[in-house]
């Protein structure tokens, strides 16, 4: 969780007046926060001479975080539909399974739609998860129209009165207009019979500044409601997630920290900021 451990360890060892601001900038950049956020933090800390430096950084970060709810929607009348989107290899399918498990543990009745009909064996991957979790998985054949699979699942989730429908989609690079159009179609088709309540963008925590461009285009295309940040168990600081939340006002809702189903938690910003300053 302590994304900036190294940074704050360093600061707490140094009196800020003696800490080279350029060095601080380097540390922020190395955490993938990006040149923009790094500059803002430095400038704010300069202008708040009387404030404790750590407080200043904490305040800058907390001010840049989104005020939007980090709760996952719930509709008591009809199935709550969650669309999982992102570029290739960020961990969408694993996140979909983890989210299903999380909701199941909240005593919700969950169904998964395997709308990644493109990647070789993706359907099989989510089916395996479904079997392990005891959660029904609706699927088509490899190469089937993902919108059709999602639509079938939406219909079934209504008639069989599920609480949640999680739609796992194929990874696609945000620069491929045709693939983005396909994703828009998935959402559009499902919304013919039921609203899509959440669109969760899965962001690989090891991603660099490109993550922002990804989130931005997915947001424009299908209206992202929150982020799932994955692979935070490595040495990556995941600063891009903070930068993305700050720039696009998209709340981080969940973080993935490992390969097992339970390595998945709600993102709690207050706790997160406390963690930072407690170091």
């Amino acid at each position, binding site marked *: 969780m302590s994304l900036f451990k190294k940074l704050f360890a360093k600061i707490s060892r140094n009196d800020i007046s003696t800490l080279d601001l350029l060095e601080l900038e*380097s540390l922020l*950049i*190395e*955490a*993938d926060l*990006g*040149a923009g956020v790094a500059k803002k933090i430095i400038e704010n800390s300069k202008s708040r001479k009387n404030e404790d430096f750590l407080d200043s950084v904490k305040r800058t970060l907390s001010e840049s975080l989104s005020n939007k709810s980090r709760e996952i929607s719930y509709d008591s009348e009809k199935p709550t539909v969650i669309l999982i989107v992102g*570029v*290739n*290899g*960020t*961990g969408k399918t694993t996140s979909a399974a983890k989210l299903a498990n999380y909701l199941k543990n909240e005593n919700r009745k969950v169904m998964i739609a395997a709308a990644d009909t*493109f*990647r*070789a*064996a*993706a359907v*099989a*991957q989510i089916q*395996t*998860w479904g079997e392990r979790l005891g959660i029904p998985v609706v699927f088509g054949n*490899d190469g089937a129209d993902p919108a059709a699979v999602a639509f079938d699942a939406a219909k079934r989730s209504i008639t069989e009165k599920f609480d949640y429908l999680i739609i796992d989609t194929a990874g696609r*690079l*945000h*620069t*491929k*207009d*045709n693939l983005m159009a396909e994703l828009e179609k998935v959402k559009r088709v499902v919304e013919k019979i039921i609203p899509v309540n959440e669109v969760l963008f899965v962001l*690989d925590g*090891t*991603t*660099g*500044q*490109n*993550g922002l*461009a*990804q989130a931005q285009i997915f947001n424009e295309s299908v209206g992202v409601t929150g982020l799932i940040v994955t*692979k935070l*168990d*490595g*040495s*990556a*600081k995941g*600063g*891009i997630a903070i930068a993305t939340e700050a720039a696009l006002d998209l709340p981080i809702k969940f973080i993935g920290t490992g*390969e097992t189903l339970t390595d998945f938690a709600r993102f709690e910003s207050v706790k997160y900021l406390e963690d930072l300053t407690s170091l």
Partner: protein
Amino acid sequence: MFDSLTGKFASAFSALRNRGRIGSGDIDEMCGEIRKALLDADVALAVAESFVAKVNERAQAALPELRQSTNQSQAIFAIVNEELISILGGTARRIRLAKNPPTVIMLAGLQGSGKTTLAGKLAHYFKSQGDTPLLVAADLQRPNAVNQLSVVATNAKVPVFAPEVGNGVGDPIKVARDGVAFAREKFHNIVIVDTAGRLGVDIELMNEAKAIRDAINPDEIIFVVDSMIGQDAVRTAQAFLDGVGFDGVALTKLDGDAKGGAALSIAQLTARPIMFVSTGEKLQDFDLFYPDRMASRILGMGDIQSLAEQAKRAFDGDTAAKLEAKFAEGDDFTLEDFLEQMQAMKKMGSMSKLLGMLPGANSGAMKKQLENFDEGEIVRTQAIVQSMTPTERREPKILNGSRRLRIANGSGRSVKEVNSLVDRFSAAQKMMKTMRNGGSIPGLPAGMANSISAQQSAGLRKPLSKNLPKNLPNNLPNKKKSRSGNPAKRAQE
């Protein structure tokens, strides 16, 4: 991929060009711009800084001499180009084949970096080189990784050794060892071992990778890395280097707009060369890595060399010679030649990839068009031509209304599309005539002409014409034509 890096370099240089005489301060300013561009592209801080320091030092040292020269900015451009080639790894390196086959290649990397897809592409590549690769499914961790590799292998028409179903069951070390033994027995000369993705900090999994390595004693270990990775790239790479070790790097997902800077830093900081790049979802979207050519692309000079090589490979000598003779004799370029060229083009790989090698192709608008090039258009155009009789192909003039309707029905396209193809073809034919008579190629992108002349004047490369195979002038108009076959582009024209 490097589009915005290209743009920023370009603006740093143009600021320099606009100075009458370059002073020491101008160089500092340019270096500041370059540093920022590199950091925005996720280039590791240490690499960005040492790069800028070197460029600055060399440019400052050359300054007294440059004062005499007329094109100072070009000389500085050349310094940047050379330093860029050096951070990209200097010279190209290829897979070293083992003296006693099979050559064992092991793939390692983070989860989701694209190992399994790359395994398929590598196998496909080796197969096209006349090798007999075998894929070994030693990723028993991720659900259905084995299944995925099998599908990929089927697509590449390469055999796969997959005795375990995976999903957490089975011993990857045993699978890897048995796979290599199996390859030896069946005389496969190359074995590609796909392993589970792991984090640099996961000691247990790193030890497993080490055990696989020790069991199969690979000739090459390739570290597969996502080009979108951020500043953590260096730490991760170092952890893999210390853990399992690797000989080369493969960059994946270069078809997005990630600038790949962090991944490039790996080559510099670990002193391990980038060997392959993967640029799309199809098996053919795979390239060998050439540092000098990549530097050209980053600096917006295009990659004419790769384009020429691909053309050489696709157009067999006979076709080319025949066409050239025809061309020289003043015979008309016919739809039959067109069809032949189109088939050759298809052999060269996807159109968007080919056009992406042209100078200026990475700039905004063109890049966007390339991303969304409809490859199916070539197939449709081909269908139309194939629905014509040989006479019609030779003499498109005879295509009256009823013939056009027949062709439309035969190819499953509309008469409008047939008409538009015939129109475009006549235009191309006219262009060929102009060229033969010594005219310039109309409609060549301005950026292309510019950067070609920039290359020549900078003396970075031999004059372009020497690098191109003789038949290329025949191909260029063909490409122009196919490109305008895209309805979106047609509308733009």
